[in-house]
């Protein structure tokens, strides 16, 4: 081994790769993911103590798993010794390592990994707790790294994680794979967690700690791990496609001064072709398997990704995809997007017709994009005075300074 820090970063790299599997394997033994994570952490500490002087073992993942498992067995034995002093309890006598190996060989580690994902994203936990637990247990991120990524103090994340572990224990959430109708619901929670992580990273701005944008990569990595575990689930591929296609635009979505650049104005040469290609492939898999809301959103993103220039965008197809999305998951915001696509495909008059019912929609009251979009349609129809009123209304609603300036500029251009 070379210097201490080199050894440490090498061990941490092994940890990042192996953490989830080590935790998952131990969780099956002890039935408690919180305890499993602590035992796995103990194994990491042991590695940090031993590897720098003794060298990294030939199979570091197996070493970590074995060490963590031994500690799990020690813990279980201690509990059994304690229980033996309580005469009323019948205690399972023999607890040797080979018995545990038999347990672990029953089904593959992949199933444990999947159980771990479903448990970390369990609906008894609040979304931010699911996110923290998932990054910690599946991503192998430290509390500190998660805190930096979410712009909160380390102590907050630490508490969030320990409370989440306690909630899982209190609710006696079993370490198992959900089946039947519960499975779909639990899977949608997992996908939601991954999408939340991605969006947090995607909303990072210039000057943020690099851990923030790195969340996008974490989310894509988690998505790919999930796809490897349950390759027959269409929406997993749909989500990956959506994330990869969105991430492909990362470099193009801000200008030299950090200002946002809208999709249609982006320099498409800066789109990441490797991610576009991967995203389109994932979308094809998702569509083959059936798809759902993530797949439809990915299909919409793909229409943009396939167009070499903004003018080549297939708006008719986008409008149709939004209609299908609205049918599957009705939402005024989706309708608003459909109106934009329809206006691009069939002209502003057609767009206005789609917009019409939305004007009475209570949830869009105060939503600046509604008058902003309507203003744009009216402007394109030459109805300048009405357009101007809409842009001014939108400007009064937005909280974003840059956006307000833009809307007021558009209002003035109507004169």
């Amino acid at each position: 081994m070379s210097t201490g820090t080199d050894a440490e970063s090498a061990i941490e790299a092994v940890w990042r790769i192996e953490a989830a599997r080590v935790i998952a394997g131990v969780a099956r033994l002890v039935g408690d993911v919180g305890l499993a994570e602590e035992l796995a952490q103990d194994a990491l500490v042991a590695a940090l103590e031993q590897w720098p002087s003794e060298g990294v073992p030939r199979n570091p993942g197996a070493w970590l798993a074995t060490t963590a498992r031994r500690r799990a067995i020690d813990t279980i034995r201690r509990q059994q010794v304690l229980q033996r002093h309580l005469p009323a309890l019948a205690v399972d006598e023999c607890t040797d390592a080979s018995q545990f190996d038999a347990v672990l060989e029953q089904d593959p580690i992949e199933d444990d990994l999947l159980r771990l994902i479903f448990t970390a994203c369990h609906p008894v936990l609040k979304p931010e707790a699911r996110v923290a637990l998932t990054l910690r247990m599946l991503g192998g991120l430290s509390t500190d790294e998660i805190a930096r990524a979410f712009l909160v103090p380390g102590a907050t994340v630490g508490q969030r994680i320990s409370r989440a572990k306690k909630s899982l224990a209190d609710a006696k959430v079993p370490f198992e794979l959900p089946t039947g109708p519960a499975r779909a619901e639990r899977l949608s929670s997992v996908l939601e967690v991954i999408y939340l992580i991605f969006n947090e990273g995607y909303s990072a701005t210039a000057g943020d700690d690099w851990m923030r944008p790195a969340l996008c990569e974490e989310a894509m990595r988690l998505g790919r791990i999930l796809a490897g575990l349950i390759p027959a689930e269409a929406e997993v591929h749909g989500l990956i496609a959506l994330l990869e296609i969105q991430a492909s635009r990362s470099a193009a979505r801000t200008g030299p001064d950090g200002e946002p650049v809208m999709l249609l104005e982006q320099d498409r040469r800066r789109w990441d072709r490797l991610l576009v290609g991967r995203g389109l492939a994932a979308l094809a898999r998702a569509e083959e398997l059936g798809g759902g809301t993530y797949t439809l959103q990915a299909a919409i993103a793909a229409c943009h990704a396939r167009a070499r220039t903004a003018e080549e965008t297939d708006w008719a197809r986008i409008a149709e995809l939004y209609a299908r999305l609205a049918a599957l998951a009705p939402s005024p915001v989706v309708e608003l997007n459909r109106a934009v696509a329809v206006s691009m495909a069939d002209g502003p008059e057609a767009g206005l017709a789609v917009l019409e019912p939305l004007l009475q929609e209570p949830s869009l009251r105060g939503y600046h994009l509604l008058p902003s979009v309507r203003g744009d349609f009216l402007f394109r129809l030459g109805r300048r005075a009405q357009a101007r009123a809409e842009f001014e209304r939108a400007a009064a609603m937005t909280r974003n300074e840059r956006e307000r300036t833009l809307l007021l500029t558009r209002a003035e251009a109507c004169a």
Partner: protein
Amino acid sequence: MRYMLMHKLDDSNAAQWQATPEVIAAVGEYMEEVSKAGVLLAAEGLLPSSGGAAVITKKDGQTIVVDGPFAEAKEVIGGFAILQVRDQAEAVEWATRFAALFDHDIEVEVRRVAEFE
């Protein structure tokens, strides 16, 4: 961040390009592991220069194309993988595991991929 892992083989050593079934199986397993870990973005294996190669040199304004196979024995890239990892240490760990699959000497180079900021 992305890293490219490239392994180098002796262009004139045919044995190195004809992996044993054991090595082929081990590499297959490794690729599955990298893929399931969610880090694999792309990977390809290359043929030795006898399988199709050329070197284009531009020197003093003159462009020269020399087709393969290369006459002199040299180390050439045998294949590459692009991984999305958290840091260089992780790329080095994956490269170390790759090198361990082979029964002959091998060099794996790890390089950071330039990305738009």
